[in-house]
């Protein structure tokens, strides 16, 4: 028996069309879909080189149901700046909102200069950083947003190393230090929160920065079906604080659980931290990570 499948006539219900080549359980694909869904069709998006760009734009196809431009790796914010000023010069700034996108490498490392310029000049742009905490597209190399003691292919663990020896760069604070009206962090574990923050950001004129924690099962070596759980534990332990900063002041936070969820709960379900559980000395390292979570809880008042 043959069954003929016909595509539904109405437009795809999501603005990031299905059929792209993201991995199973990809947090970034989910985050991007939520951002677009909340932003609607009257937007122009730029996207830096990275997983999101590669899995959505395999020539000659595209998953983007909104106007889209791929920039280079280091300049999503600069290309978006160009789009925004051109719209203004043409007197068409009310027709579309501009959203610049990049991964953590494209935002916190190679793209930081362009982002800083965009924030400083006060462009009316929402910058979204999809934070999966390493260069996943090129095979899991560390980035400025890779967490402490995390194993990647360029921060290997072994005799000389526990993995990434640097702390995660505090990008939201760097963005906020530019004196911009709105900075927010979010997580794919809380989809409604992402949508609300995107809508709020787009209602504000000026530069906005949003950073979304997006687990990568391939790079984090976590089970694809656990993406949401992993993301939720990052928030609940205090390792990924969720907050809003408006005009320099923290205005809203998501509380962590009471009693406190120990960081082990988050670390043990990811292969990228597995080395911490293999020797007694690893316990000391886990304690250091617990201290990072505790500092976050104190700094943002998450308890």
């Amino acid at each position, binding site marked *: 028996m043959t069954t003929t499948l016909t595509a539904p006539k109405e437009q795809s219900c999501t603005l990031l069309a299905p059929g792209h080549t993201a991995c199973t359980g990809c947090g970034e694909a989910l985050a991007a879909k939520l951002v677009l869904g909340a932003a609607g069709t009257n937007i122009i998006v730029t996207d830096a080189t990275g997983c999101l760009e590669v899995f959505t734009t395999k020539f000659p196809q595209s998953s983007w149901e909104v106007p889209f431009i791929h920039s*280079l790796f280091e300049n999503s914010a600069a290309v978006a700046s160009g789009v925004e000023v051109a719209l203004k010069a043409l007197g068409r700034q009310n027709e579309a909102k501009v959203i610049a996108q990049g991964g953590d*490498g494209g935002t916190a490392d190679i793209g930081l200069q362009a982002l800083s310029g965009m924030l400083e000049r006060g462009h009316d742009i929402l910058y979204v950083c999809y934070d999966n905490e390493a*260069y996943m597209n090129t*095979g899991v190399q*560390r980035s400025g947003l890779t967490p402490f003691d995390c194993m990647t*292919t360029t*921060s290997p663990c072994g005799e000389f190393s526990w993995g990434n020896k640097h702390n995660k760069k505090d990008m939201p604070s760097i963005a906020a230090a530019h004196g911009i009206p709105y900075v927010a962090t979010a997580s794919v574990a809380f989809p409604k929160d992402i949508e609300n923050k995107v809508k709020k950001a787009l209602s504000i004129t000026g530069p906005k920065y949003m950073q979304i924690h997006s687990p990568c099962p391939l790079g984090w070596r976590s089970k694809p079906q656990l993406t949401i759980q992993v993301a939720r534990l990052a928030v609940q332990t205090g390792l990924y604080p969720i907050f809003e900063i408006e005009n320099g002041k923290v205005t809203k936070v998501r509380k962590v659980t009471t009693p406190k969820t120990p960081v082990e709960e988050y670390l043990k379900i990811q292969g990228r931290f597995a080395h911490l559980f293999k020797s007694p000395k690893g316990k000391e390292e886990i304690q250091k990570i617990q201290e990072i979570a505790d500092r976050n809880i104190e700094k943002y008042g998450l308890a």
Partner: protein
Amino acid sequence: MKDRLPGGISIMKQLLTGNEAAAEAAIQAGCRYYYGYPITPQNELINYMSTRMPEVGGAFIQAESEIAAISMVHGSAAAGGRAMTSSSSPGISLKQEGISYLAGSELPCVIVNIQRGGPGLGDISASQADYFQAVKGGGHGDYHTIVLAPCSVQEMADLVYDAFDLADKYRNPVIILGDAQVGQLMEPVEFHKKPKKNLPAKSWALTGAEGRKKNVIKSFYPVKGQLEEFNAHLQRKYRTIEEHEVRYEAINIHKADVILVAYGTSARICKEVVKKSQQYKFKVGMVRPVTLWPFPKEIIRKVSERVECILTVEMSAGQMVEDVKLAVEGRCPVHFYGRTGGGVPTSLEIIRKIVEIVPDNRAANTLLQLAAVK
């Protein structure tokens, strides 16, 4: 420990990718400063360095961008260290300003480009479209980098090893121009311990000035006439390199009717054509430039005096063919066959092209028929 098995097989051989071989060869050549940034298809190199450098007490830094990586090389080279960076086409574009400054400051270093398809983000498969960029400058100003083009994993190791000596000898950046295939294919490789060459001491390096005159490294000559004088010095150095450092491989050039000119991955395929042609008594020879700059002009000029024609094969829209034409200076026709965007020429395509350019050659026709049947 014996290093040979019965039958003369070396036990020192390792199975490595070209990228890993480049990294290991650099370490064996005394490179202790490596700065990288992720980009496919050279990631095996940076991954290897991240593990290997701490073992030998060297420095591995994953920079925040390609510009930072080449600038860290600038710093380490100025301090007298053997420094290296690697990337692939788009990343090499970002490094161009740094490469021009390194050449202008006469700082020795090694830069590996594992080429991928372009322009723009292009794709991640093998390409030879950065020839112009590597050989004709890339960055601004009248400068040259020595450009070495390996065609196998073993040659990758050998050339990277030699690259550090060449860089130190001439105080000049050296570029290793590979491609995604040479970088990612795995082949047995042996690291030959070579005798130390008598290289000049780095008396110019920035190492502190206690008890001696300070050293200054710069590429800025604002006083009228100074820059012209400095550039003349650079040009004299480049002429010396052209005189002494040309390398190439010549196969069957003495009896050939047609000569193929190709480097890197294209050359491997051309070798196959030369091999097949011998079986059918069809006279195809080959010149494989190993140094793309200095270009082996002399040998190409010599063969052009007696062959029917020359066919240049590249994985580009035609870049090296311009240098072949400059060497030939009209002595014989120079043809071109190329594929771009990840396309790799097959030996059959090359034979077809030969038949097209020498249509009355019976041996070539026979070869084409036989090759097509296979």
